[in-house]
């Protein structure tokens, strides 16, 4: 890899993006999809659930520590000065109100869409969370078509929610989403490892 402004900035942004799979949100989405797949094939029991949750917590903590030790720590760029000024003065009121309204709108939309389609709102929320997490990981590498795999996995899972004939294959949908999460995380990790190896000046 040639040492260019673009390659160094991409590597820095990928490092920032990798914080997603060091966090509990990624592991929560992954565990929920694995649990969904296991529940539909009849292998889910309290002991498996406990081990999955414990593994996710330990893996998140271990990865976070490993990354900080191996690749250091980077803080994401703050908004532009004008936006920062806006946040400084009005964030307390405008920002919090906007966030609350957005959350309420999303929850209402999930309940309405879920009721109309005959799907649990929690399943739709989990689908959104998983898709956005995988897309975030894929786009962190700077790949223009990085969103394709997460969107395909989401479409397959959504189809198993909505189409009655495909509901039998919901386990496959959850497994596909879990695979998409793992694949995008591994791709990002490999991108970082190769990037750091070749970036040396």
């Amino acid at each position, binding site marked *: 890899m040639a*040492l260019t*402004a673009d390659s*160094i*900035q991409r*590597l*820095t*942004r990928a*490092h*920032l993006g990798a914080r997603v799979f060091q966090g509990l949100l990624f592991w929560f989405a992954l565990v929920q999809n694995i649990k969904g797949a296991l529940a539909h094939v009849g292998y889910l029991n309290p002991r498996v659930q406990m081990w999955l949750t414990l593994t996710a917590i330990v893996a998140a903590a271990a990865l976070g520590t490993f990354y*900080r*030790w*191996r*690749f*250091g*720590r*980077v*803080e*994401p*760029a*703050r908004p532009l000065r004008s936006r920062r000024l806006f946040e400084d003065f009005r964030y307390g009121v405008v920002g919090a109100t906007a966030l609350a309204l957005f959350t309420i709108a999303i929850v209402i939309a999930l309940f309405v869409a879920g009721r109309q389609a005959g799907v649990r709102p929690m399943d739709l929320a989990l689908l959104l969370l998983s898709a956005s997490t995988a897309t975030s990981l894929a786009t962190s590498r700077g790949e223009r078509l990085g969103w394709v795999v997460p969107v395909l996995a989401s479409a397959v899972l959504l189809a198993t929610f909505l189409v009655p004939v495909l509901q039998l294959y919901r386990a496959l949908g959850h497994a596909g989403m879990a695979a998409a999460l793992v694949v995008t995380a591994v791709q990002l990790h490999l991108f970082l490892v190769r990037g*750091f190896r070749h*970036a*040396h*000046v």
Partner: protein
Amino acid sequence: MPTSKGAPFERLIAADKLVHEPARLAALTALSACESADFVFLQRLTGLQPGNLSQHLAKLEEAGLVTLTKAFARKYPQTTARITDRGRKAVTEHWKRLDALKQEVQSWPRARGVHLRSRTLIPRESQG
């Protein structure tokens, strides 16, 4: 500062040495894409030894291109670097200048009546 009228290589030689040095350029470029980065990240990025990187960062700090914050996390020293507005402007302009030079050099053979054949520069007049 280089003028835009000089020959490309002269302009390259006249480039800002403080920013043009590869390790410092890599560190400044990485810092321009984030809010701050710690010493370990810059070390992994540049592949330099700690003492060497420390000297480069000290030079950048002395020139006002970065600010360094030294603290202790538990018992371990932790150095964090942050680019200043001046540093951001300097690195952006430097990359723009390098890109302009690169484009100018790429358009050379045709402009000078010379074209590449078998990796050798052959003037058009001598091809008869």
